[in-house]
């Protein structure tokens, strides 16, 4: 009896060992439990045999076999061996389906179903749809990027930008096993990269996946009028007539006339109607330059109902109008000898147009006094202050000028003007100027009242003005002046070119110059230099000195002015949301020299943007560039400030109109792109009308592959049932045979 049991146990152990060796990793921790388990099983069988001794040998054998079988099953449950089944399997092919969901697909054409709707219909019904049922489709909505989707949306939000090459590359380069049988691209072929078809096709060839293209859309032009080109002068002189030449594109609108307008300051100043004809139609406007300054004009093609978008119908340009000749404004507080001499001097200067407003009656009755005298309707009669290269405020109290006009004067200087204040008993603090907007602008610190002592003068410092004054010697020998306005020195940055001497001691600046904002100021604190021209002590030397004195001052004042030292140049005033806008900032010093060591900051606000960007200098001298990215349609304000060594040298502001991106709205279908992709990748191109042909060409045969299936018998229900059966049989036999 022991012989057969031993043999059974031996065989079971061999089988176990075989399984363990083959299917179990030697590193499996259960292997360590196996051997003790086998030993325990053998001991258990031995003890069982000892207990069964004395019974019928056949019954003992049966029970021992059952026990051994049960122990073996338990060991298998612990070992859990794996069985591998290697067999061939047939699978449907993988088809990548890329549907162009860009704006040119979803929004075009204007009438009838969109290109996208046509494409979707072809994918959902008909031969293409039938072909798709026999494959495993992986769907992608493509525009600026490829988005995997379970089903294509009926009404997607058409993205304004498409890059077919990069989005298809994104789809095709993903590793898949097995390799996709083909890629079906359903598109109009239009994208905003406008890459050459051959280049796109060559880039996709390397992925080894044939691309079959189903083309939708009309390759004819999309109806759209736009301003294609615009030529206008940048700088003109006041009153000049200049031409604005415009090239209007009217693609798809050859049978329709196009209306064109030119506007400035929100008002239409001229209209043109371009008769139907070619897609590109030229037009010319003749414009008369207005007042000096910057003038922004806008050319607009009046949007038509039949065109796809009006967002590209407008272009703007800026024309700088220069004053015709140099102009100077003198505002004089009263007729007086100093004024009479100065007036004669200024009116003698060639190429200088001097406008004089002489206050003849208090408090503020002004007369034009440069030609025939005539009464002026207030100071505003002089016109815009920026028309003047320089302004002289001569011996007039602040209260005779309105606070608004004084603020205008301050702003005039800040924006680049040259301003002088001449002395007298109504000038500086004596005229109540110390609490006005000009107090911080002037180049002297005002003191109280007047100094009445006789004065001589001497040239000071090394400024350009002082150098000009030094062309005459012996200033201290000139006839004495009779007092001056009290000043308490000059503010930081200002320079004294001439100072007054009384009893051998300096008593204050006679001429001081300074800068404020983009402009400059000059102060003359005396009021009777006419004594150098006509007084008992006047002689040829003093008259020459007087000429030099005023020639130097006038020359300093009317020297070409640095109109704006900081200028923003965007080149346009209408940009598309989402498109980066390079903002160039031109920085010059007061002498027109480019500044290369400025710290330039561009701040943008509006149109979904609120940021401050440091502009970097580029190769061109004095030119700095920052990139601004408007996010949404609206108005965006740009302000550029330039700082050198901690001092602001100016700023400029502009407003840009941010429009909705035109994107692909105007793109005609490009079957040539699709055809090139298909030919180069081994696919085929057909239009949507030829979808049946394309469906037949798609390589959608099932693929066969060998497949290994792994089974775990010890974890199957059958295994559990066998264990229960063996254990139950053992239990029943023992009860029947009365074996304990």
């Amino acid at each position, binding site marked *: 009896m022991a012989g057969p049991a031993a043999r059974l146990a031996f065989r079971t152990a061999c089988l176990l060992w075989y399984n363990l060796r083959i299917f179990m990793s030697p590193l499996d921790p259960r292997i360590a439990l196996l051997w003790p388990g086998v030993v325990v099983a053998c001991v258990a069988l031995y003890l069982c045999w000892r207990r069964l001794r004395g019974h019928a040998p056949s019954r003992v054998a049966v029970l021992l076999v059952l026990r051994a079988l049960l122990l073996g099953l338990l060991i298998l449950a612990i070992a859990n061996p794996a069985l591998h089944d290697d067999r061939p399997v047939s699978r449907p092919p993988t088809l990548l389906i890329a549907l162009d969901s860009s704006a040119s697909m979803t929004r075009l054409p204007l009438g009838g179903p969109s290109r996208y709707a046509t494409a979707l219909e072809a994918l959902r019904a008909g031969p293409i749809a039938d072909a798709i049922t026999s494959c495993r489709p992986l769907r992608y909505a493509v525009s600026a990027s490829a988005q995997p989707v379970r089903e294509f949306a009926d009404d997607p939000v058409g993205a304004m930008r498409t890059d077919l090459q990069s989005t298809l590359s994104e789809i095709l380069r993903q590793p898949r096993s097995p390799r996709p049988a083909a890629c079906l691209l359903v598109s109009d072929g239009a994208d905003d990269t406008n890459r050459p078809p051959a280049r796109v096709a060559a880039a996709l060839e390397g992925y080894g996946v044939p691309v079959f293209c189903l083309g939708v859309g009309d390759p004819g032009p999309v109806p759209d009028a736009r301003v294609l080109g615009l030529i206008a002068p940048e700088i003109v002189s006041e009153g000049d007539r200049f031409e604005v030449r415009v090239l209007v594109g009217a693609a798809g609108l050859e049978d329709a006339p196009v209306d064109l307008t030119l506007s400035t300051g929100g008002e239409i100043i001229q209209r043109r109607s371009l008769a139907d004809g070619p897609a590109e139609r030229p037009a010319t406007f003749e414009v008369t330059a207005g007042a000096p300054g910057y003038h922004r004009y806008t050319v607009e093609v009046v949007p038509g109902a039949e065109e796809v978008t009006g967002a590209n119908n407008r272009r703007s340009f800026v024309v700088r109008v220069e004053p015709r000749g140099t102009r100077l404004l003198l505002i004089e507080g009263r007729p007086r000898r100093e004024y009479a001499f100065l007036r004669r001097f200024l009116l003698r200067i060639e190429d200088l147009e001097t406008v004089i407003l002489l206050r*003849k009656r208090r408090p503020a009755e002004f007369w034009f006094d440069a030609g025939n005298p005539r009464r002026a309707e207030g100071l505003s009669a002089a016109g815009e202050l920026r028309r003047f290269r320089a302004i002289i405020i001569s011996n007039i109290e602040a209260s005779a000028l309105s606070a608004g006009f004084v603020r205008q004067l301050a702003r005039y200087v800040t924006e680049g003007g040259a301003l002088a204040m001449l002395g007298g008993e109504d000038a500086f603090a004596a005229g109540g100027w110390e609490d006005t907007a000009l107090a911080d602008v002037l180049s002297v610190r005002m003191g109280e009242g007047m100094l009445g002592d006789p004065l001589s003068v001497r040239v000071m410092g090394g400024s350009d003005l002082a150098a000009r004054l030094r062309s005459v010697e012996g200033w201290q020998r000139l006839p004495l002046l009779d007092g001056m306005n009290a000043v308490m020195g000059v503010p930081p940055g200002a320079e004294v070119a001439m100072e007054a001497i009384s009893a051998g001691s300096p008593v204050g600046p006679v001429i001081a110059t300074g800068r404020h904002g983009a402009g400059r100021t000059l102060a003359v604190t005396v009021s009777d230099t006419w004594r150098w021209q006509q007084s008992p002590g006047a002689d040829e030397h003093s008259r020459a000195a007087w000429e030099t004195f005023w020639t130097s001052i006038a020359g300093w004042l009317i020297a070409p002015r640095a109109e704006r030292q900081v200028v923003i140049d965007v080149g346009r005033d209408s940009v598309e949301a989402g498109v980066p806008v390079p903002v160039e900032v031109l920085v010059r010093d007061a002498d027109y020299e480019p500044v290369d060591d400025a710290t330039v900051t561009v701040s943008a606000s509006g149109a979904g943007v609120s940021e401050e960007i440091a502009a970097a200098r580029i190769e061109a001298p004095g030119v700095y560039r920052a990139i601004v990215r408007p996010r949404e349609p609206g108005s965006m304000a740009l302000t550029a400030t330039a700082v050198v060594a901690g001092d602001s040298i100016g700023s400029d502001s502009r407003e840009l109109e941010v429009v909705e991106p035109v994107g692909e709205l105007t793109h005609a279908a490009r079957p040539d792109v699709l055809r090139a992709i298909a030919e180069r990748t081994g696919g085929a191109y057909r239009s949507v009308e030829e979808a049946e042909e394309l469906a037949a060409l798609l390589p959608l045969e099932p693929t066969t592959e060998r497949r290994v299936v792994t089974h775990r018998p010890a974890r199957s229900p059958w295994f559990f049932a066998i264990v229960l059966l063996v254990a139950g049989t053992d239990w029943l036999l023992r009860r029947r045979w009365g074996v304990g």
Partner: protein
Amino acid sequence: MKLCREIALVILLIAALAAPSSCEERIGRLKYGGGGDWYANPTSLPNLLEFAREHTALDLPRREETVEPGDPELHSFAYVHVTGHGRIRFTPEERRNLREYMLRGGFLHVDDNYGLDEYFRREVGEIFPDRELVELPFSHPIYHCLFDFPQGLPKIHEHDGGPPHGYGIVHEGRVVLFYSHNTDLGDGWESAEVHNDPEEIRLQALRMGTNLLVYALSR
């Protein structure tokens, strides 16, 4: 000590009030030779100055100063008035000084008080041998620079009948000498009780005189 200080202060105050302000323009009456009554119409200039101060922004003294034609101080005056009924005679030095005064920027107003014309014209010929005394057109700024005189000089007094005439010596576009003839502006400037001129006539004379002052101080 305190008393001395107070006296000194009073003296300084009186001196300050009496002395012309440093910013005031100097207005002169020419004290010429030859026997003519250069001092005629004594209230005329003070009245004119008062009127001009009242109606313009000019900074003028209350009274004129007397100045001789050869005096170097002549050049400090913005406006010099000449009047009289008779002879005027300048020395060569005075003529040179007057000429220089006018050409350098001064303004001489000669007002014929009747009887001055012959002598004055002779002297003008001596002072400006190279220039002519020309009658100024009614459109000249001197008639319009503040008050408007479309018909030229107003007629104040009848002398020889006929219209008044305004003549001038013009240098570089500027009238440096203005000669009012056959009108007697100075009589019109005088106080009302002197000649019993109608108020309107006096007003016309004062306005024309103010124009002369404005012109002299702005051209």
